[in-house]
């Protein structure tokens, strides 16, 4: 309360002082004659204009020199993309066109204000217009503008050009969400898969990718933007909720992210992060320690990173949408890429929410067939009966039942193929369980499971006489039944080659 009172008193005091200053000067004017006072005021104002003009123009030039490192194309603030240089040079051309105008008009303005201050007995000249002069100073700006427009449009159309159809480029995708960026790489196929905002489930499918689209299966969700130097990049920019803007200040890249409409920006990184650091090293301001209180901490240039920011107001966290951008050599890029896992494979595959959990992907089918065929070859060549056993790890059943899981069919297809390949081969199909529960029930279950496999194979046209289904229950463990891991190994389906 008392502070409020003090503040009110202070304001009142200031108001009184202000009013008194005004009153005093008015009184002075009355005493000395208004005309005299006006001429003196003119003189004072004229001189003030001159002083202000000099200080102002010197200040402008000083500040430009002082902050030159931050101006485009000077000092450490170099463009790190191939097109960036053309924007910087256009900026500087415009600067060279405008600075003389700025200086000339201001010098005239301040000088006239001083020179033509109202004086006693002086008269203003009656000059109402001058057509020639006016045509000149209409024409000159028009010509200069034409020059800048042409320069600008040439640069603009080059920078904004999309990739040519036969051109080699990397396409990545950036998606803005309140308040973070998602970065997606296309994976080995080089193509980004389709998405649909209706499929978005945070955590499970953050971008709403359509997993039925094969192009999505190898797409990578990256934590940073990593790009090889000197390679054209086409960024596909999308937004999930509100407008965002994909802003890479060092690369002179900026483009709105619009919900419902992808936008694109094509650019080529020119300088690797490491090279940029070396450039910065030349400047004393980058020799300063990162932590001003600790002179031993790393110098600024050493910790420099390119950054991705958001440049379109997107809500209360707008100021925090940061991602690192790393420009590296082609080898480092390939190295990094090979360490990245596809989002589908690492986070979706086999989960309840995987729409493809009941099917195998082409690569998986191929891989398993290869493994299986090898095992068959090996078993065929083996001498002792125990080595003629092939474990069907991918044949599984619903818990407690003899119903084959959907994915089992892929391995069984391999069995069918092998049986077709070796028409003389006969096999014993064996079911095994672990020791949990009743031994008799286990025996029965293993028998029906073996039967289920038998049914599948005969259904595929294998002669019944070549197959001998048999349940072993818990009698033949291959590992300890005391651990869950061991029990899992014991629950298994095998077949043994009887004749070949």
């Amino acid at each position, binding site marked *: 309360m008392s502070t409020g009172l003090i503040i009110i008193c202070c304001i009142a005091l*200031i*108001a009184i002082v*202000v*009013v008194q200053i*005004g*009153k005093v*000067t008015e009184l002075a004017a009355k005493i000395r004659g208004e005309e005299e006072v*006006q001429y003196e*005021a*003119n003189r004072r*104002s004229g001189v003030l204009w001159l002083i*202000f003009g000099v200080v102002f123009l010197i200040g*402008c030039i000083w500040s430009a020199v002082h*902050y030159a490192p*931050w*101006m*485009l194309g000077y000092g450490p603030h170099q463009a790190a993309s191939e097109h960036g240089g053309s*924007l910087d040079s*256009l*900026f500087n051309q*415009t600067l060279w066109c*405008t600075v003389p*105008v*700025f200086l000339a*008009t*201001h010098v005239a303005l301040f000088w*006239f204000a001083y020179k*033509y201050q*109202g004086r006693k007995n002086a*008269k203003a000249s009656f000059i*109402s*217009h001058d057509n020639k002069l*006016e045509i000149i*100073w209409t024409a000159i700006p*028009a010509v200069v503008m034409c020059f800048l427009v042409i320069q*600008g*449009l040439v640069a603009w*159309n080059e*920078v*904004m050009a999309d990739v040519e159809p036969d051109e080699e480029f990397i396409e990545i995708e950036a998606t803005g969400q309140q308040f973070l960026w998602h970065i997606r790489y296309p994976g080995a196929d080089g193509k980004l898969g389709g998405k649909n905002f209706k499929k978005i489930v945070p955590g499970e499918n953050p971008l709403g990718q359509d997993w039925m689209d094969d192009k999505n299966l190898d797409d990578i969700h990256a934590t940073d933007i990593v790009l090889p130097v000197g390679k054209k990049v086409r960024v596909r920019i999308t937004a*999930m*909720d*509100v*407008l965002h803007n994909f802003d890479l200040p060092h690369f002179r890249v*900026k483009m*709105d992210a*619009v*919900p*419902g*409409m992808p*936008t694109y920006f094509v650019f080529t990184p020119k300088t690797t992060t490491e090279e940029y650091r070396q450039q910065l090293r030349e400047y004393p301001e980058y020799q300063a320690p990162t932590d001003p209180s600790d002179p031993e901490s790393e110098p600024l240039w050493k910790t*420099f990173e390119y*950054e991705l920011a958001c*440049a*379109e*107001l997107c*809500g*209360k966290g*707008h*100021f925090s949408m940061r991602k690192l951008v790393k420009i590296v050599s082609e080898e480092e890029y390939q190295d990094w890429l090979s360490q990245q896992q596809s989002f589908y494979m690492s986070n979706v595959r086999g989960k309840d929410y995987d729409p493809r959990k009941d099917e195998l992907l082409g690569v998986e089918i191929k891989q398993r067939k290869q493994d299986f065929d090898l095992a068959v070859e090996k078993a065929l060549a083996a001498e002792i009966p125990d080595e003629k056993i092939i474990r069907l790890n991918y044949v599984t059943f619903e818990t407690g039942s003899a119903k084959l899981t959907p994915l089992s069919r892929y391995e069984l297809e391999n069995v069918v193929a092998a049986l077709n390949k070796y028409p003389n081969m006969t096999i014993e199909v064996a079911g095994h369980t672990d020791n949990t529960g009743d031994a008799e029930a286990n025996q029965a279950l293993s028998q029906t499971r073996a039967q289920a496999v038998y049914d599948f194979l005969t259904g595929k046209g294998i002669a019944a006489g070549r197959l001998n289904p048999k349940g072993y229950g818990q009698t033949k463990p291959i590992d300890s039944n005391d651990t869950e891991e061991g029990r899992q190994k014991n629950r298994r389906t095998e077949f043994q080659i009887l004749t070949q």
Partner: protein
Amino acid sequence: MANVTTIAPQDQEDKVIQELGYDDHFHEHEHGDKYKSNFIMKYIFSMDHKIIARQFLITGMIWALIGAGMSIIFRLQLGFPEENMAWLRPLLGKWIEINPDSGLGTLAPEFYYALVTMHGTIIVFFVLTAGLSGTFSNLLIPLQLGARDMASPFLNMLSYWFFFLSSIIMMYSLFLSTGPFAGGWVAYPPLSALEQASDGSGAGMTLWILSLVFFVVSVALGGVNYVTTVLNLRTKGMNMWRMPLTVWAFFVTAIIALLSFPVLVSGFLLLMFDRSLDTSFYLSEIFIGGQALDHVGGSPILYQHLFWFLGHPEVYIIILPAMGLVSEVLSVHCRKPIFGYKAMVYSILAIGFLSFIVWAHHMFMAGVNPFISNFFVIFTLIIAVPSAVKVFNWISTMYKANIRFNPASLFAVGFVSMFISGGLTGIFLGNSSIDIQMHDTYFVVAHFHIVMGIAAFFGMFAGVYHWYPKMYGRFMNDTLGKIHFWGTLIGAYAIFWPMHYLGMAGVPRRYYRFDNFDTFSHFADMNMFITIAAILTFGCQIIMVINFFYSIWKGKKVTTKNPWGASTIEWTTPIHAGHGNWEGKLPTVQRWPYDYGKDGREFIPQIEPLKEGEEDGGH
């Protein structure tokens, strides 16, 4: 003040009006007071354009203080992000979040964005549109054209009261528990359309739209009146080429406003539909708040087109009146005709026309087809030509002048400086390729604040100091006015000049703090400097406000009808003109408004007939 040796003294002027004036039988028909009035009808629900002008001005000043005060609060956040803001809690309440451990207060980010948004809305619409154009169009159009009032005084009164209603609604939105709208003054959807996107996009946005729709009604009623008055109520002899540049500027401004504001309303209407009726004009494929919305097929870019189709002309709605005021004030106090009167008129018309075909230069980076931008670059940079002509003409007006320096003329000269500085940076931004780097950075903030914020305020101040004697029959204090001017000139440059460098370094605007990014965190000292400059500059405005209100009652009295020795006819009315402006006959106009220093005379009033063989229009 008046160092004028009046050649046509007051009674001689009266005589001229008696002899040559146009008798519209004002007295006989209306028995001396056409507009019978008690206190309420005279000062509150007034239909007198001069009272309405004062209402607009004072409401605008209140809004200016609020809008500028908001900028001080968010500048504190930017300049001193680590400082304890708990002391603002009595004012801002829950928007200052107190850390329970340290007891330190911080400004809530939501409210930071609400402040930024409201600052823009208030200054652009309520202060620089209503407060500037509303005040001076009302005051000067009838007075300088020799009309008794606006074409429709009643609509004119409504125009103010719709503005008042709009103000009340906007003011009310500041006190909502979810806060006022916080999505930027441009109110781009989806941020402005979806409650889930921001607290302020709920009730705050509803009130924001409502307020601005009433505001547009106010502008439309005012605009219709201004245009009609200029076309129909000019006194005898006042042909278009004898109108002062102020009236030309107000006239073109009103036409621009009438053509562009309705488009804004249509944009708002569709936004309201999207918000309330689940339509999808601007919304498509949105996942927000853990939920995919049903909206499909809309485009946020459509809104941007509709918005900027007003938004860009709005810039000229703000700056043209300021240009008009400055031209007039500069000429009167230079004691010289405005240089190139016709060129000035043509450039106002050219700017007015071009203002309609450049809107997409706000959208170079919005995702529109880059090919389209080619046209907008061309038209945008062409605007530099008429603007340059105006600057050269103002400077030439000062050449070989005999300048009487007072706060009005100081602000007029300051305006020219600001307009040069801010205009030149527009040449950078108008070029789409440079805009790739500059778009939505502090370079833009610096550009538009200088060229249409500060410059427009300077024009407004010049107008207030110059026509204050006409409005209140007293002068504002000269010394305080000069302190106000120099403080504001230096302060404004100190605030906005350094921002250019921030922008070149790529620092984006509308950031609550900069230390999340290494790239943007180098400028803590500069931000502190800017904040201190802003506080001092705000202090100078307080001086102006004190001066303004003090002078209404205590200012030095005006003793002559024409204290500045101006030739326009508003200065032939009585010092305290009643409703109807002229007591007897209406003055008739015999010549153009800028005969200063002609034939060795200080000035020749517009009512004085041309001499034999004398050419009109400064020949």
